[in-house]
């Protein structure tokens, strides 16, 4: 139980700064391997820009494919950060402490990966500024604010900026600790970054306030981001996209995949960085409970989506769903999606043994994200394949090796950046851990000690 592990501040410093102050061999190997994959993907992007989008599997009418899938996938993952940090912070969930930093950082990197996707997806990415910024002052033509594709960059860059602020604000006390433990140029860099932090009460108060304020401000952004992404679809006329439920459905789905990704990340981190003293079964258990609630809500919305999609009995809507659910290979993907992101993990999580097993949780959380990638894919592609009643133009889509390379590249990129990050900053906030140690207590109820939280009265 909680009281098993009480660490001194010195122990906390020592164990959490280990990654920053030393460079193990596995880190170098891993970073190099991931770097190669990323370089491969960058090459693929270059090749694609050089040759044209013909190198993808896209074709009329499947104008959107893997890139947009991947875009939504990463935006989804990015929802973990805020879910864990902001919501759990606001609701004062104690168990958030070891995961906030990693989750927020993952959010930032996932957002970067997702932002890259619409860019490489565009026919003329070098004209991105025409898209995001007003580009022709002489004629006064501005981007068309009616287009969700204009809302997207605004929402995502806002989210990215605020997430980075979020990470940075929470990093300051830890930066000061590193500053105090390093010498030479590192000392000056960390010194500059830590903005003269000395941990006096005024600084703590401002830092705490900033955390709460940012949490509250970021929440609407958090909801808006995936809602806007969902409106890319629902404002269209494409059958099965043009549905009102997409915004909450996407957001909750994003939380599902994002929190699962946090689980995966925590378990891997724990193993790689030997963080057994900080990441406990209880944490994973709490995440799994959260996931169960999220997954149930998500399934409710999915069910509503399906029922109301079919109930108008519109030919085209039914055609799309039939393709999605009953025609191979889509039916296979649908089956996998459904099994992986719901049917297998959720019942398993009902068992305390599973929730508290790092192995089980690693695999189930990975399953969820694999399933959620398929979910996005199945939302996009079959709908475009059966977009309208013109059966004459029905077509299919098979992603090309270039697209696969780029998708794997984004996965490698996020891992790569996380590893690099961990080299310079602790993945678990030291001050959060210390604060947690302070606030924890136990109440004796009958014969057992129940962990308790100090109520700020």
């Amino acid at each position, binding site marked *: 139980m909680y009281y098993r592990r009480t660490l001194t501040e010195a122990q906390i410093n020592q164990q959490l700064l280990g990654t920053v102050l030393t460079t193990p061999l596995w880190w170098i190997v891993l970073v190099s391997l991931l770097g190669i994959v990323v370089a491969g993907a960058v090459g693929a992007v270059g090749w694609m820009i050089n040759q044209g989008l013909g190198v993808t599997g896209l074709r009329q009418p499947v104008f959107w494919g893997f890139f947009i899938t991947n875009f939504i996938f990463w935006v989804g993952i990015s929802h973990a950060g805020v879910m864990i940090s902001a919501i759990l912070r606001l609701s004062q969930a104690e168990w958030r402490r070891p995961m906030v930093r990693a989750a927020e950082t993952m959010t930032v990197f996932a957002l970067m990966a997702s932002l890259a996707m619409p860019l490489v997806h565009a026919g003329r990415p070098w004209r991105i500024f025409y898209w995001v910024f007003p580009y022709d002052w002489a004629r006064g033509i501005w981007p068309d604010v009616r287009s969700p594709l204009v809302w997207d960059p605004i929402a995502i860059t806002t989210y990215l900026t605020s997430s980075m602020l979020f990470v940075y604000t929470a990093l300051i006390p830890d930066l000061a600790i590193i500053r105090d433990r390093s010498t030479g140029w590192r000392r000056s860099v960390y010194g500059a970054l830590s903005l003269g932090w000395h941990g006096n009460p005024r600084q703590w108060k401002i830092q705490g306030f900033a955390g709460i304020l940012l949490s509250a401000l970021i929440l609407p952004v958090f909801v808006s981001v995936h809602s806007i992404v969902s*409106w890319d679809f629902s404002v269209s006329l494409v059958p099965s996209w043009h549905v*009102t439920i997409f915004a909450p459905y996407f957001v909750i789905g994003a939380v599902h995949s994002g929190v699962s990704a946090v689980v995966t990340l925590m378990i891997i981190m724990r193993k790689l960085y030997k963080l057994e003293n900080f990441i406990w079964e209880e944490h994973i258990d709490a995440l799994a409970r959260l996931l169960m609630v999220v997954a149930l809500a998500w399934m409710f919305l999915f069910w509503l989506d399906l*029922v*109301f999609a079919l109930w108008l009995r519109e030919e085209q809507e039914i055609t799309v769903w039939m393709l999605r659910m009953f025609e191979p290979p889509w039916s296979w993907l649908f089956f996998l999606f459904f099994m992986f992101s719901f049917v297998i993990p959720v019942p398993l999580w009902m068992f305390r043994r599973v929730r508290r097993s790092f192995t089980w949780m690693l695999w189930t959380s990975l399953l969820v994200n694999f399933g959620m990638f398929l979910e996005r894919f199945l939302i996009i592609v079959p709908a475009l394949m059966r977009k309208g009643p013109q059966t004459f133009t029905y077509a299919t889509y098979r992603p090309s090796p270039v697209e696969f390379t780029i998708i794997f590249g984004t996965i490698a990129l996020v891992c790569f950046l996380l590893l690099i990050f961990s080299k310079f900053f602790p993945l678990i906030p030291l001050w959060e851990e210390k604060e947690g140690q302070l606030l924890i*207590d136990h109440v004796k109820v009958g014969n057992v000690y129940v962990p308790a939280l100090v109520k700020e009265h």
Partner: protein
Amino acid sequence: MAHEEHAIPQVPTHQEIASDIMARFQNVNQRYWSWVSLLALLFVGGIVGFVMRLSDGFDDRSNWGYYTATLSFLASTFLAMPIISAGLRLAKANWRRPLTRLTENMAITGVLIWFMLIPALIALPPTEGRLSVWFDFPHWMAFRGGNLMVWGTVVLIGLFLLWLLAVPDLAAVRDHMPASPRGKLARVLSVGWTGNTRQWRVLHSGALLFGAFYLLLYPTLQTLLQADFQAGLLPGMKDAIAPATALINALQGAVGLTLVVMYVMRRFGGYERYFGIDQFWALSKPLLAFSLLWFYFWWGSFITFWYGRQPGESELIRFMVLDSYRYPLMVSFMLNFIGPLVALVWNPVRRSIWGPTIVGAGVLVGALVNHIRWYVAPFSVPDPPAGEAWPHVLPEIPAGQLPGAADALIVVGGIAGAVLLFMLINKIIPVVSMWEVGEGLRLVKVRRFLARYAMVIAKSH
């Protein structure tokens, strides 16, 4: 932490609490009876209104719009109340303890609501040729039977929870006032409760299990309500988010109602000790969240329709948003979204008794208006000529419908009836749970924290 109190906080004992609650429970005064009589009068008025409607028959469905709106308002506020206690219990929120019973007692209104459902179902056209979640289920009774069953199950689970969670307190009533009729009734209802470990275990797991059931079934009820009574009657209404919006609206209404009831109990019942700032403050947060979600869901559906610009969608926007039901929408927009947002973003407002209460009352009015918009509008859409399928586009946009005298009687009477039932049950089962509050006291300890004292509240798992 900003608290300036340096004294050691006092934790009351279980005994203190129990006797205080019991005393209030036993006291049935004049004011109580006058309220009950007034409500009974209004309820009878409602029945008169209902009989007036009955005499017009069911051929013209538009007569039944306000009736259905009342029904759905009750189902969406009173029936959603047990969700608050079940949800908070699942989330192990300790501040819930004083207010769970209040919400559970509301489940008694389910009896009235279920009976009210029957005429509303009769007013619905058969499913043939019309959009319906029952699809082509062969028998025309499908959605009627189905609805009665789902609603009935929800009501029964609510009543069961009400009873189950009241058993220890009923036992206390039994032991306290064995001679009175209420005590005798309590004897029957407390089914030999002695408070042994096994009984407690059954009670706890039963509460969790059936609470979870309620949580799962209630959205189904809202889905049916939206599908059968709203979307199914509106040509072109393809709005998957509607049940979720209705659910949010219901939860919002339930929180609003809880706040208002807590306020009334404080003001007129002397329950200040139980319904304190903690409860108001804590409830104002979900209230704000539900208000934001209310707008978010509404907007999600509006923007989709607006962009779709398909004939069916444009006509519906005109009908429900821009034209016929413009004013009801504006009212509920103000009361269910703008008002709560503007008021509750401020911590001082949230951390007050009056703030959340006023917002909660506004939310209740907004929810009523919203339900009128939601259900009166579709009921005023005429059936297509016999034998023809329902169109996918509104053939014409019906005008907004104002309530007649009978409608007004029904709305007021319906609500009065529900409140009446609540007032009556409060005198059978104490409105504050003695055992749950008492249990909470055991989880609290006072500890020195830094330079002060702090309460430490345990969270078991």
